[in-house]
């Protein structure tokens, strides 16, 4: 046993194997973020990278805007603003939830580095959060450019004086945690599945479109599905950001025929309620995602899934 003491002449320090607590975690996260960003962006020149990053959100935006313009009607200006904001935010969400899942698939199937990353001193979860964070940053860039595009090309009117800047900053920041948590949940699933899982994050995000009030108010959904939307942090995130940018705009949560209005009696949640709901639902989803990830990680280790490569 004396060989494992700090005073060992071979120079082995057992404290190093135990990690340095929060400072190590921060260092791991920073390294993973940087690695993720480089993996994302270092293969091409910046102009091409920006084109790739913004083409997807802008096309999604146009798809919905054309749908609204075809139908037209008196409500189309309001509907346009509602949809444009939701759709632009969606780019950030899709990038954030795809990040950790694609990291698992890339590192396992393509680069075959997952097993080495797993045995490195960094915590696996922290590593995936970092990689997901880098993709989220790229997605946020897409969201910002899509919004600028909407203002310049699609005529989205935003009164900068009326924007509630502190609420915008707080809601954007608070949304990052549940978005990455959903990404971690998908990473847990991709640890168990095969290479075809590349399209799973997109499919998952597409389904969340239905229950998040992104492009239509939750009131059009049946009550049980609406309830599912109300416990979804993404619903509150999108609603809070919308409330901050267009304070007097239509609500995705309340309104005639909505479950919210039926239960609370109010037309729509106010800013404080939206932020509190975002915090509570976000915390619940984050805890659940972490527990599921831990369980998936254990199973992957037991079944030897960390270095499995598949194909079809």
């Amino acid at each position: 046993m004396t060989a494992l003491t700090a005073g060992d002449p071979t120079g082995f320090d057992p404290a190093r194997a135990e990690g340095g607590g929060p400072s190590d975690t921060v260092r791991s996260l920073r390294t993973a973020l940087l690695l993720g960003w480089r993996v994302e962006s270092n293969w091409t020149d910046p102009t091409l990278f920006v084109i790739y990053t913004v083409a997807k959100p802008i096309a999604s935006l146009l798809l919905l805007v054309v749908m609204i313009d075809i139908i037209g009607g008196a409500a189309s200006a309001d509907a346009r603003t509602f949809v444009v904001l939701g759709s632009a935010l969606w780019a950030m969400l899709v990038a954030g939830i795809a990040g950790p899942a694609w990291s698992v698939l890339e590192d396992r199937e393509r680069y075959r580095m997952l097993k080495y990353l797993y045995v490195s001193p960094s915590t696996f979860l922290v590593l995936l959060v970092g990689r997901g964070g880098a993709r989220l940053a790229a997605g946020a860039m897409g969201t910002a450019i899509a919004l600028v595009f909407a203002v310049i090309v699609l005529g989205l009117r935003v009164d900068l004086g009326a924007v509630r800047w502190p609420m915008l900053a707080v809601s954007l920041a608070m949304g990052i945690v549940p978005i990455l948590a959903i990404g971690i949940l998908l990473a847990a699933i991709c640890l168990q599945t095969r290479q075809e899982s590349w399209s799973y994050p997109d499919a998952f995000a597409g389904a969340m479109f239905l229950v998040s009030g992104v492009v239509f108010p939750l009131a059009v959904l049946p009550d049980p599905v609406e309830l599912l939307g109300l416990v979804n942090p993404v619903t509150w995130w999108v609603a809070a950001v919308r409330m901050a940018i267009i304070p007097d705009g239509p609500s995705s949560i309340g309104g005639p025929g909505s479950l919210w209005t039926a239960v609370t009696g109010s037309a729509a949640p106010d800013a404080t309620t939206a932020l509190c709901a975002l915090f509570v639902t976000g915390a619940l989803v984050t805890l659940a995602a972490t527990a599921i990830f831990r369980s998936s990680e254990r199973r992957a280790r037991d079944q030897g899934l960390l270095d499995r490569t598949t194909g079809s």
Partner: protein
Amino acid sequence: MTGPAATRAGVFARSRGGTDPREAAEWSRRQVAGNNLRALRGRAYPRIRGMTREPSWVFFEILLPFLTTSAFVLVYRALQAPEAYIGFVVLGGALSAFWLNVVWMMAGQLYWEKSQGNLELYFAAPMNLMAVLLGMAVGGLVMSSTRALAVLVISSLVFGVQFNVEQWGLVLLVFLLTMSALYGLGMALASLFLLWGREAFNMTNILIEPVYFLSGLNFPVGRLGALGAMAIATIPFAVGLDAMRQLVFAGQPYITGTPSPEVEALILVAMTVVFTLGARWMIRSIERMARARGSLSIRWQ
């Protein structure tokens, strides 16, 4: 003859009907065709068989896309759009399965194979690489047909879509032509993506939403004016979707500004020929380059 030479001669004798290796290397047309058909079947097999080995795809490839389609249906419902548009969305949602398959599992496939180290084995194997590409296409077509059919049936039942088909034969023909043009494009893109290297993954992403928009996934493509006309002339998904919409929703006044289904069928024939010949030329060029450079097919190069 004794030892390894005798063993080798025995193998030739059993497999090719002779004992001379040079003679055994001279394959008849029938042997070549049989070999390529086996390669095709072998490449399609993991995709079709894999469907039964990875049950999660039922949830992610059928249920979730149905929910995505439902979201777009509800956008139209929230806007109080005419019921015909619900049908347009459902058909677009079903056919998008094929486009996703072409992009993810055809266009990017040779690049993934390279990343996994399989590509050099493909180039070394005594077969035509077109057989491999066709095998990928056949396997992918079976996979995505399941998803497309499920989304179509479930969505039609849930949202009460009314189809009005007057020319069943033409519907079938247009569907088959759309698939051949789509997978022909996928085979051609497979070689291009291989050359683009790491850009392939990002190209995969860029080919989804922008193509959905240009092809009028949720609305008649004629509404896009000149942009729609350009899409009809160049994107098989756009022309196939528009022709199918005209045929399965016959008499709808909302589908305007595009050629008739017969003309679009001819466009699809032209696309099939161009893309398939293009794919053949490109895969041969890639094969030559792989042999000349010695690095194109190797991982990390």
